[in-house]
């Protein structure tokens, strides 16, 4: 498939040469370049960013702010003022709900959410709607996980203030037509919140090209350390929004009876920031850019195709979503007749194959699809055919292991 063995860039595979890591939608492994960058930051550049008036603190500030510029360029934002560092996509989405939501959602307003959203892009809106006595409405998909423009147009009303949708569902793996949906939302005066947790690591994402109002994603799903995430928001929206958390280094001026707040983006970054994480995210972006999305997508699509087509040959395997491998983007969620997903995961574990079992933080979708839980294999560019072979060899034995004759 490739001349280059990317696994060599990832120390975890040196330590565990025999695992087939197919849980990349949960989190990715970290390349040496990212580990080194974080280590270098703490060895050579650490001080509290944005505060100190000495050289080392300036270095720390530069390292942190350079990471913001790298993120800006990576997702095509107009300004680094539009890039807020958070802990992860969940915090980014909560920030929107708490700050924009509480200032703008009123009784009888409507919030539209897709039925396949991750709990992160679902619960903040459910809580907000309950609190404001607004109406939470659900956009439903077809059995293959497809959302249509017609259905969206029908679901929007003059009262729909916000539409929350993932660019790629963590269960279906299908890419939603965000650009088209953003246009429909704009025409209706509805803001669009896009969860990019599963898309930003795997396909080129340009926020201005897509026309989204907000985009949230996590660093740890794209080779960076855990604990660093991003919220992109259009500058005029962020300007109007009140702070989310209050505390250190997000103020302009504080008196005993009030305060004025710092400018963007620091208004939304109260307290000491995760500079080491941001530096790690910067290194992850550099690493991804050096490989390029052409190569990343080519490898991931090839592996996905191999997985889906081989799985389709095995009886009693039911793939969730489309039968077309091109609609899966590295994510293949499935069930096996008569075998509980937790038993499936345990048997894979015995063979050193790491996959996820459960509801994948998408319980409403599982209920909608009529399944209790599912199993998910998800690939990254550093996986290879051998990982798929290991997965398939084990998959074929599972029903027999559980006592079934075929």
């Amino acid at each position, binding site marked *: 498939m490739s001349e280059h063995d990317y696994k060599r860039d990832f120390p975890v595979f040196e330590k565990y040469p025999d695992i087939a890591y197919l849980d990349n939608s949960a989190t990715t492994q970290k390349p040496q370049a990212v580990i080194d960058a974080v280590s270098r930051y703490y060895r050579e550049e650490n001080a509290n960013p944005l505060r100190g008036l000495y050289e080392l603190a300036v270095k720390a500030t530069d390292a942190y702010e350079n990471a913001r510029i790298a993120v800006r360029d990576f997702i095509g934002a107009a300004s680094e003022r539009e890039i807020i560092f958070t802990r992860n996509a969940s915090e980014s989405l909560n920030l929107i709900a708490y700050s924009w939501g509480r200032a703008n959602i009123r009784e009888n307003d409507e919030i539209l959410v897709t039925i396949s959203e991750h709990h992160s892009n679902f619960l903040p809106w459910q809580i907000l709607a309950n609190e404001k006595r607004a109406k939470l409405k659900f956009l439903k998909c077809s059995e293959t996980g497809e959302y249509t423009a017609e259905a969206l147009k029908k679901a929007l009303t003059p009262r729909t203030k916000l539409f929350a949708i993932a660019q790629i569902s963590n269960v279906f793996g299908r890419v939603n037509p965000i650009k088209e949906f953003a246009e429909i939302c704009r025409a209706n005066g509805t803001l669009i919140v896009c969860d990019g947790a599963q898309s930003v690591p795997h396909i080129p994402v340009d926020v201005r090209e897509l026309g989204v109002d907000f985009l949230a994603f996590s660093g740890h799903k794209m080779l960076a350390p855990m604990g660093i995430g991003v919220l992109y928001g259009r500058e005029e929206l962020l300007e109007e929004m009140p702070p989310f958390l209050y505390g250190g280094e997000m103020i302009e001026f504080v008196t005993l009876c009030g305060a004025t707040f710092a400018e963007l983006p620091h208004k939304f970054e109260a307290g000491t920031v995760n500079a080491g994480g941001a530096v790690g995210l910067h290194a992850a972006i550099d690493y991804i850019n050096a490989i390029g999305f052409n190569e990343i997508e080519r490898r991931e699509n090839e592996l996905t195709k191999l997985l889906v087509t081989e799985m389709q040959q095995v009886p009693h395997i039911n793939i969730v979503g489309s039968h077309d491998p091109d609609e899966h983007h590295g994510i293949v969620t499935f069930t096996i007749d008569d075998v509980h997903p937790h*038993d499936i995961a*345990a048997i894979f574990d015995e063979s050193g194959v790491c996959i996820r079992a459960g*509801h994948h933080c998408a319980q409403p979708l599982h209920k909608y699809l009529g399944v209790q839980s599912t199993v998910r294999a998800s690939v990254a560019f550093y996986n290879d055919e051998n990982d798929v072979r290991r997965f398939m060899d084990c998959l074929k034995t599972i029903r027999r292991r559980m006592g079934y004759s075929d």
Partner: protein
Amino acid sequence: MTNFYNEILTDHNMHPVHKHELSCCTCSRDGINPSCGDEITLNLNVENGVITDGSFTGSGCAVSQASADIMLDLVIGKSVEDAKHLHELFVKMIHGDACPAEIDELEEAGALADISHMPARVKCALLGWRTMAEMVG
């Protein structure tokens, strides 16, 4: 690593003896593992301090279903005090603290001993036992 999908477990999962409704039982109780979605209803008939009959219904992974079935095999016909004692031994075994003689005392339930190496599955194995202990405790 682990080898708990042995014949005893798969057999009890595929052909459970005690998985059925039980009319005129003296008590029944729901046991749920919310994170896995395992759910069972355990029914017991207790007369004069003896478990004279029992059954379960519900759904879940093989570990939870087989464990509940094996447990009922063991405790039906025994006194409530003996059932409580077996529950204690089972909990001990699942946490990897039981000696071979204690595991022997658990008879077929001893086939689940390897689950002590799989922390994520401990609650599956315990579901039936925990529910029974709550009923007779």
